[in-house]
């Protein structure tokens, strides 16, 4: 009996590993190993012809903290995340609630909201470039009608980051709306009827029933938005290139600059490691805290 049980146990363990292996291999190859290598290379100094690369420990990190551009991009990115995440979620939720109610041309409304999502970020950025261009752009043309002076939205340090933020929200909200719409459709309509009979107002129903039932979706969307706030920088290349004077530069763009414009790979690696750490911790906190207050079906 013991032998059989042990054999069975071993067989199960084997099965477990076999089922795990495709994901494990792929993740190791493309995520874990590169992360580890990045961390490793962040511990070495930049090698030049005269000074070969040597182990410097936390040296690269210290250099980064001393770098004024670093604190600038971190603050930029915090503002960027702090605005794009909540605003795009709220807009997505509002649009989904609206597009899910009984309105005329519902299909059209949904498609219209979804359109920004299917555009590549580069194309979206080009569209907005046309909106923002001083003098010629749509914004300025409309402004001119009301007698406002022309504004260089992308060229002024005060407005550049906000112009980029608006593009991101425009792009993301429609995408998140699709998740909310799908989730809304899984809420049985008789819950609304049961609430109606109890005399529940629309707002109370939304607050007490719809929002709690959308919580799993909200967590998913929030984590996605967080990742996007670090990852989604394609439009910077088209719109501002991080300028003027770093006003709209985000962390990942700076990493790209460090690595491929200034060829300072170790610095780029150090910054990457920090981003990974912050993202990992934030996602973990989000899941742990929100999970406790969430009802999963």
């Amino acid at each position: 009996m013991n032998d059989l049980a042990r054999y069975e146990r071993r067989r199960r363990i084997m099965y477990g590993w076999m089922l795990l292996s495709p994901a494990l291999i792929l993740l190791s190859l493309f995520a874990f190993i590169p992360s580890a290598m990045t961390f490793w290379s962040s511990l070495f100094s930049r090698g030049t012809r005269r000074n070969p690369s040597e182990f410097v420990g936390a040296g690269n990190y210290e250099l980064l903290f001393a770098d004024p551009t670093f604190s600038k991009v971190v603050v930029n990115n915090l503002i960027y995340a702090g605005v794009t995440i909540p605003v795009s979620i709220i807009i997505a939720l509002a649009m989904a609630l609206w597009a899910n109610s009984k309105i005329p041309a519902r299909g059209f409304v949904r498609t219209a909201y979804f359109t920004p999502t299917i555009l590549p970020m580069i194309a979206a950025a080009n569209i907005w470039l046309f909106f923002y261009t001083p003098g010629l752009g749509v914004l300025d043309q409309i402004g001119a009608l009301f007698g406002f002076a022309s504004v260089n939205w992308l060229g002024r340090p005060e407005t550049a980051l906000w112009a980029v933020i608006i593009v991101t929200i425009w792009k993301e909200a429609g995408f998140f709306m699709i998740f909310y719409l799908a989730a809304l459709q899984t809420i049985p309509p008789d819950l609304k009827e049961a609430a109606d009979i109890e005399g529940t107002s629309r707002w109370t129903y939304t607050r007490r029933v719809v929002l709690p039932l959308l919580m799993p979706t909200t967590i998913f969307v929030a984590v996605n938005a967080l990742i996007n706030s670090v990852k989604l920088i394609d439009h910077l290349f088209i719109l501002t290139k991080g300028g003027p004077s770093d006003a709209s530069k985000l962390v990942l763009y700076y990493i790209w600059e460090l690595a491929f414009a200034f060829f300072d790979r170790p610095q780029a690696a150090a910054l990457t490691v920090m981003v990974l750490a912050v993202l990992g911790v934030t996602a973990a906190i989000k899941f742990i805290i929100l999970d406790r207050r969430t009802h999963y079906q």
Partner: protein
Amino acid sequence: MTDPFVHVESVEKRWNGQLGVEDIYLSIPRGSFVALLGPSGCGKSTTLRLLAGLETPDSGRIIIGGRDVTASPAAERGLSMVFQSYALFPHLDVAENVLFGLKVRRVPRAEQREKLAQALEMTGLTGLETRKPGQISGGQRQRVALARAIVAGHPLCLMDEPLSNLDAKLRHSVRRDIKKLQRDLGMTVIYVTHDQTEAMSMADMVVLMKDGRIEQAGKPVELYETPASTFVAGFVGSPPMAFMDAALLPAGLTSAGLDAVYGVRPEHLDLTQAGDGMLQAVITHCEYMGSETFLSFDVPGSSGLTVRLPGEVRRSVGEAAGLTFDLSNLHAFDRNTGYRLPR
């Protein structure tokens, strides 16, 4: 009784011209238990939803408690509803589900607690307060839906096939619970079902529907003993009434002539020796039910002839037998319209 508590007059509902219900007249006294009965798709739920205010009628009037509520929203009609699917809020626990309406209406805390305890006690749910609907059994969910309906204290409660998801045994016990609750609280209950035994055993008044219209409304005994049509006769009773052509009966014994179809209940049919009796038949089925046995017969020109015999009866299929009955127990219906003929 003076005015009826619920009064429905000539109500009609269509969807894009497609019939939901029409010609609905109901007059329901306070405190009664009414069953809406009928086959699937006959408009029972639609009628209930019209009463609840979840649909608005195309024409007609609905009066509840002396107030014309035809155009009022559901919340203003002073009623509660138990949904076929329970419609419990999956993220709220049992207590919060039951209290949902009271919280919405900002009933004081102390009163909430008192009513909750009372409702849970009545429905036998005490101890399950903190469970989510996903963590209790189907029968318990059913009770939660009931508790939510009674905690509001509305005088009218609508129930849409509340037992259809339960197994036979549970159905039996919840059926009694509902009936007892209704009596204890003096509620008026309108209860949708497609199960005729349920309707007959629980209701003071049965409303039998067919194709969006009311076929017959009355006390269970009226539907059983004087069915208004062959449809009612065939729907109510288990096994249902059997029908025979007039030509099978001794000539001159019936008044209505050859245009009639005659119906007879199983308990009014008697078995005799082959060769005797009024009809010569062949046994086609023998169903043993424990306390009784049903023998089915085949006679050309008839349908559904069944005899109910006590205990176990050993007869083999294909055997010949005679059937006899008292002519005063026959029901006559019009052959073409199916409506009952006066005797």
